[in-house]
């Protein structure tokens, strides 16, 4: 086990964490501000991946796929919000869970009808299909780019939330939504803005994940569950929580998957170790979340009230 190997795995964990952050940021804002559980967020990620793959396969350009796919996903999010979800803001969580669950079924079947049940493939853009040299090891350029883009988006979000007027309204809405409405701010438009932003981020995550995962019906659900773990661990409504939570989950999952089998092989038979390794790594994330919830139910980096 060399330093190089460890570093590569750490970078992989970082890359997974960044993707999770893009999704978690949108979801935590929606939950924090509108108190709305949106299970269909994973479906927005899926639609983002499909839009991007479709445009890419039609035009051959990754950039065009991004320029078309991300706004398209944002638009889709806004339409869904206006048509189906506005009436649910006043209802309790269970109804929201149920309705967005119905949306998941709808979107999964929609992509199956339009693009078929088998996977759709998207190639890594030619410019990024090589490797970068880092401390003597070679790391795929594309994954490196994901980390870069994600960090840039993170910075942009930070600036948006903490340095702009809209961001101030969002922060206020996360802590005291009633007062914000009472102060005469158009809450409906704010909600739509937040939802649209979340959808755009999900679309961006779908675009970037497209070349490295399978774009297929139902791809949103596994990611959704990880995202929920991230926002609960990090703190609902908190972008900082989403960022750190996502990085923790991404790194724990990847390092666990990479090194647990090797560790377990000292005690167990090989194929058993190789089955147990990833399973235990996946369990680790949930153990982590359970521990956090039991000790500090508001999350690791909760939104500061008052």
């Amino acid at each position: 086990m060399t330093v190089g190997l460890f570093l590569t795995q750490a970078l992989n964990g970082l890359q997974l964490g960044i993707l999770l952050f893009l999704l978690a940021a949108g979801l935590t804002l929606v939950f924090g501000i509108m108190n709305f559980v949106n299970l269909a967020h994973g479906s927005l990620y899926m639609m983002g991946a499909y839009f991007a793959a479709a445009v890419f396969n039609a035009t051959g350009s990754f950039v065009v796929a991004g320029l078309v796919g991300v706004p398209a996903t944002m638009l889709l999010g806004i339409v869904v919000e206006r048509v189906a979800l506005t009436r649910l803001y006043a209802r309790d969580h269970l109804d929201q869970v149920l309705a967005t669950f119905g949306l998941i079924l709808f979107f999964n079947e929609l992509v199956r009808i339009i693009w078929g049940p088998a996977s759709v493939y998207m190639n890594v853009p030619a410019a990024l299909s090589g490797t970068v040299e880092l401390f003597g090891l070679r790391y795929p350029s594309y994954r490196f780019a994901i980390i870069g883009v994600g960090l840039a988006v993170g910075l942009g979000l930070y600036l948006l939330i903490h340095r702009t007027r809209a961001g101030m309204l969002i922060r206020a809405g996360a802590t005291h939504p009633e007062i914000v409405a009472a102060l005469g701010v158009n809450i409906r438009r704010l909600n739509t803005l937040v939802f649209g932003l979340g959808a755009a981020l999900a679309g961006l995550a779908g675009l970037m994940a497209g070349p490295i995962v399978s774009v297929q019906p139902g791809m949103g659900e596994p990611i959704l569950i990880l995202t929920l773990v991230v926002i609960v661990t990090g703190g609902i409504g908190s972008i900082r929580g989403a960022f750190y939570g996502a990085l923790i989950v991404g790194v724990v999952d990847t390092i666990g998957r990479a090194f647990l089998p090797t560790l377990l092989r000292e005690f167990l038979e090989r194929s058993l170790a190789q089955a147990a390794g990833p399973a235990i790594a996946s369990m680790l994330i949930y153990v982590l979340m359970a521990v956090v919830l039991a000790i500090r139910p508001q999350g690791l980096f909760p939104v500061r009230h008052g």
Partner: protein
Amino acid sequence: MQFIRIVLAAALAGAACGVAAQTPIKIGFMAELSGPQGALGQDQYDAFMLVVDQNGGKLGGVPVQVLKEDSQLKPEVATQIVDKLIEKEKVPIITGITFSNVMMAVHKKITEKEVFLIGSNSGPAPIAGAQCSAYSFITSWQNDSQAEVVGKYATDKGYKRVIGMAPNYQAGKDFVAGFKRFFKGEVIDEIYTPLNQPDFSAELAQVAAKNPDAIYVFYPGGLGVNFVRQYKQAGLAGKVPLLSTSTTDGSTLPAQKEDALGVISGTFWGPDFNNPVSLKFVDDFERKHNRIPSQYAAQSYDAALLLDSAIGKVKGNVADKKAFMAALKAADFKSLRGNFKFNNNGFPIQDLYVFEVAKDAKGRVSLKTISAPLKDHQDAYHTQCALK
């Protein structure tokens, strides 16, 4: 005149009814049709229906009704589908079955109900050995065989240190075991990844660190697409030779494109085969479906040809199980692979070849036959099967 026409029509209808049991034979077709592995099941289905449609909706001269079902790579879904096919639809024949974990879940269920299973892909070791059944006929291969031929090739090439990588389920283990059986060098590591894990970055980093002479992998369908592309992205293509089974084939090459050039694989058939049955098959398939058929299509095509011959032999009376079984076992048809004969366990005795991914005459990325290391090969488990 009208009256005579009516009488004639009625007479013909009556005659037609009397000729044979013209209620169509229901054939259950169950395969993976969704997700990254959907391409395999789709090829199996398309090739099977190619034969049925070319015969006017019939096999063996008898109309057939093919009930298409998607097992979604979930054994529990597959068992429910099999229950429905057998209890509700009362099918006498089930064909398809793409993945080995599904096969392991349904093999006994189907054969103990005395329904004929014509598997056209997966061939896990247990059903070739101790759990063999007289009702089960596989037109593809026993899982290990495709790996064994690559193992022989690796030995012949003089590789000494090889890493084996596969998904962590029965077929994955079978394939690596098969490779090891015929590879005389050392397998320095075996890496098994979760079946639904599409991202190999962690494992590829380990491979790069160990720097073997070659790597042997088995990643079917979408997993193969992801693997080959990530292999190229990680900079390993061209540095460490990639030997494989079922990873670069007609179902994955369209997505892998040039990333797959130079990859070695082993199986029983390639699209550049020269015999008349194969040439016709490739031609018809390309014309109808606009893509080069994969080996999965070829296997399923042979399954349909087998059923065509067997149903014809019993004149559609598949209810006579003894006769139908004998007709199936005779395998009296011209296969696209050349010689075709069943071993005692219902698995084929066949020649195995090694292929390299290269551009064909039309400039498309395809498979090129480079050698035939194993002839009249019998699988390693047939002696454990109690059948004669």
